[in-house]
Every structure is written in C-alpha cells, then in structure tokens.
C-alpha cells in the first residue's frame, strides 16, 4: 500500500470514530440526565408529592401540588397568549404579504427567539408587574407567552409552506376566496404539523425558570385566581436545590423528574397525533 492509501484509510477510521464518539456523547448526556433524575428522584415521587403543599422550612415531608397546578395554569395562560398570535402571524407570513414586511417580521421573530429568557422576564416585569404593583400569574403567563411566539410563528409558517400549491389552486378554482382557502383547506392540511409545533413549544417553555423569577415569583400556598404570585415546578426546583435541606434536595430531584416526564408526555402525544393523521391519509 502506498502512503496515500494508508493516509486515506487512517483518516477514514479517525473521522468515523470521532463522529461516532460525538454521537455517542450526545446520547449519553441525555441518558445521564435521565439516569440521575430517575435515581435520585424516583424514590421521592410519591402520592404526597402530587397532593400536598410544601411544609414550612425545616420540616420534612410535604409536596409540590401547588407548583404542579401552578405550572399548569401558567402554561395555559402562555398558550392563550402565544398560540393565537404565533398561529395567525405564521399564516400571514406563509400566505399573504409581499417582500418587505414579511422579511422584517421573520427577522425580528428570529431576533426575539434569541433574546435571553431573563430579559423577557424583565420586560414582563416592566409591562405587567410594575403597573399591577405585585407579582401575579398573569405576569408569568404573559412572559412565557411572549417566549412561545417566535417558535409558533416559524413552525406554523414552515408547515403551511409545506402544503402543495395545487391544493390552493384547487380550492380557488371552486370559488373559494383567499382567506377561505387558507382557513378551510390549507390550515387543516397542515394542522397536525402545526399542532405538533405548538405542543413542542409548550414543552419548551414548561421548563423556563428565569422569566418566572420576577413575574410569577413563587408561592408556598395555593394561588386562586390569576392575580397572585404562583408557584411553578422550575422555580421550586431552583429554590429547593440551592437550599441547605436534604429533604428539599430530594424533592427538587423529584420535581425535575416530573417536569421531564411532562415534556416526554407532550412529545409522545404529538407523535401520536401525527401518526393518526398520517394513517387516515394513507386510507
């Protein structure tokens, strides 16, 4: 074998090993996190965790029922803010508009997506908390909603663009106006994709902590209505993890596991949605 051949073969082996190793590292990071959470958290996830309020500082026991419900309320509010705006803006970008305005919209959307979450928190603080003069669920939901918008916009636009043009022509040739075509043919055709995008968007903001620190703030009790500070899983994890109490550390692990499980469930649900629709279309 010549030198060139040896060099070529060695390079092949090195690159294959390197790329394979990096792929393995990626997978193992996730497995490591899952493993750690499962190991430390699984034993603490019990009925109490889901049903009881946090005990006073220093007492052992209690749960995070208020944080679970709190995260739920915050995500609901965030969806009400983020989904309609994101969906309709995505429809605009994909179906209407000329050259300049859509370009500006896409660019600023991508910029908004890159804004650090804590800055979004400050923004929500200035816009909602200061006028109201107190922390609230509304402020937290607003902050998370703003974070949801860019992904909702872009993902909706992508899925709408993926719908073939001949469907649009078919509808218009039957006498449908542009808006009717979009609403009755295009959006339904892209619906599963859009829904999946929105669900994954929710899953992503479910774990955001920084914007909640000074909007929803936190609460050791139930938070009725929308006007009071509210507990959430990510903030609870933060509070408990940096505390000096072993019992709280355990509960923080449990919360981490529950949060991850929530994200996993959302992912699975969206795959099921996609699969069922694909099955229907195949006949």
């Amino acid at each position: 074998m010549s030198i060139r051949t040896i060099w070529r073969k060695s390079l092949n082996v090195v690159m294959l090993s390197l790329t394979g190793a990096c792929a393995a590292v990626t997978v193992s990071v996730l497995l490591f996190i899952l493993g750690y959470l499962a190991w430390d958290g699984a034993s603490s996830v019990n009925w109490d965790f889901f049903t009881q309020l946090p005990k006073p500082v220093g007492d052992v026991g209690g749960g995070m029922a208020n944080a679970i419900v709190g995260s739920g309320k915050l995500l609901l509010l965030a969806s009400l803010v983020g989904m309609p705006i994101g969906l309709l803006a995505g429809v605009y970008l994909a179906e209407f508009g000329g050259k300049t305005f859509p370009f500006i919209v896409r660019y600023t959307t991508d910029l908004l997506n890159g804004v650090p979450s804590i800055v979004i928190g400050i923004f929500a603080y200035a816009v909602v908390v200061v006028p109201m003069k107190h922390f609230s669920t509304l402020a937290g939901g607003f902050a998370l909603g703003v974070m949801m918008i860019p992904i909702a916009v872009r993902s909706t636009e992508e899925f709408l663009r993926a719908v073939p043009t001949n469907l649009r022509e078919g509808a218009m040739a039957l006498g449908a106006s542009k808006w009717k075509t979009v609403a009755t043919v295009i959006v339904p055709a892209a619906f599963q994709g859009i829904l999946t995008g929105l669900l994954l968007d929710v899953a992503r903001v479910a774990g955001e902590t920084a914007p909640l620190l000074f909007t929803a703030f936190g609460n050791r009790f139930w938070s009725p209505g929308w006007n009071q500070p509210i507990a959430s899983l990510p903030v609870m994890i933060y509070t408990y993890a940096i505390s000096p109490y072993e019992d709280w550390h355990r509960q923080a692990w449990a919360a981490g596991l529950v949060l991850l499980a929530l994200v996993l469930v959302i992912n699975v649900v969206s795959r099921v949605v996609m699969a069922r629709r694909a099955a229907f279309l195949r006949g």
Partner: protein
Amino acid sequence: MQTAIPATTPVAQEASLPLRFKIRKLNFFYGPKQALYDIDLDVPTNRVTALIGPSGCGKSTFLRNLNRMQETIRDTRLEGEILLDGQNILALDVVKLRKRVGMVFQRPNPFPKSIFDNVAYGLRINGYKGSLSDLVEKSLRRAALWDEVKDKLSHSAYALSGGQQQRLCIARALAVDPEVLLLDEPCSALDPVTTAKIEELLFQLKDSCTMVIVTHNMQQAARASDFTAFLLDGRLIERSVTSELFTTPKDPRTEAYITGRFG
C-alpha cells in the same frame, strides 16, 4: 366500453351554435414578457373545444385566463375581452365566475379530507343549504365514480388511485353545477385505460356542460372534441371543426404540427 369517440357536430350546423365564450383580442403578459398575442376564439355552448399546440405555446396560460386563475400569479396583465354569455368576466365577481366556470388540473389535487368532504367542499363554501349527500351522490355518478366509492365516502381521498382521484376532482368541480368545465391536460398523468374512461365521461357530460380541454395528445383531441384550436408561440393559428382540422388543415404550420414534423 368505447375506445374511440368520434366528434359529432355536422359542419352545416356550426354557424348557428350559441357561444358560451367569446374571446376577442386577448393579449397576456407575465411581467414584461408577452405570452399570448391577439387571440380571437369562439367557444360554442355544450360542445368540447380542444386546444392543441407544442409545449410552451400558451395553451394552459390561455385556459387559466378563462376562470381568472392567472390573477393568482403576481405581476401578470391581461388585455382584451373575455365574454361569458356576453358579459366581460373581469366585471364579474371572481367567486361567482369560478362557480360557473370550473377547472380540473393536470395532476389530481384532492384535498386531504374524506371523499365526501372533497365533493361537498364547493357546496359548503358556497353556502348550499339543501341535502349534501344527495348532491354528492349525483356528482359522483356524473363522474362515473359512485359505484367505486359509495361504501367508503368517509375514507381519505388519498386512498384512491390516480385515475380515481382525477375523477374525484371532476366530481368535485361538477358538484357546484358549472356551465363550463376547463380541463388542463386532465389525462396526462394517467394510464391509457383510465384516460379512455375519462374521455367517455367527457362525452357524456357534453350535453349539460361546455368543455374546453387543453391537451398535448393530438389523438385525444381528435377523439374527444368537436372543435379544435391550434396555438403556436402564443398565437392562435387555426381553429375549426375537429375532423376538418385534422384531415384538411388550412395553415401549413397546423399541418406540420399534426403530422409530427415538430412538437
């Protein structure tokens, strides 16, 4: 099953046929580029008019102007008159126009909905109040598809074969009872057996529907149409009764095309 469908209009009666479309001095531009030059054409009612010509001659562009579909493309301009029953179509409401003038496209384009919902679509968006299932059945029968799908109306339209999907698109277009059906190379994506079925379908529909069909298949034009127009480079070269155009063409370019010297 018939495999050859003769054109049937006797020459003597041609002059007295009512005209569904009168197109006068039609010029069409894609931006600065002109695609159609000074086209004058009559489309008789309840007959099949075929448009033939080499690729890129403007047949589809011309056809798509008849239901104003070219307006959906940016930067296009239309000059001249297109009269539908005497009225300029640019003065009509475009939604109402497209109910009267339906279109079937080259590749079948059923919606990702059930077979029933596909056919009912035009009815629903136009606010039809009566019995949808009756009309859906009627349209599917007219499109010769009813027997094949009557047990699976709730199934996805995508489960059908290509030929069935095209007949579904025809049924969908027929559901709103158009006066005119524009067909843009409807069989080019289909096999010969299915093509024959669709040609037979057009023959049966003729009595109640004026049809304009673009085809690159001259044999199809000869089989299925009453009148044929030959277009070349955006100009209308010749238009006559189909049998005459194919046996005794008047223009040498027509003769060159139909004898296969180019195209």
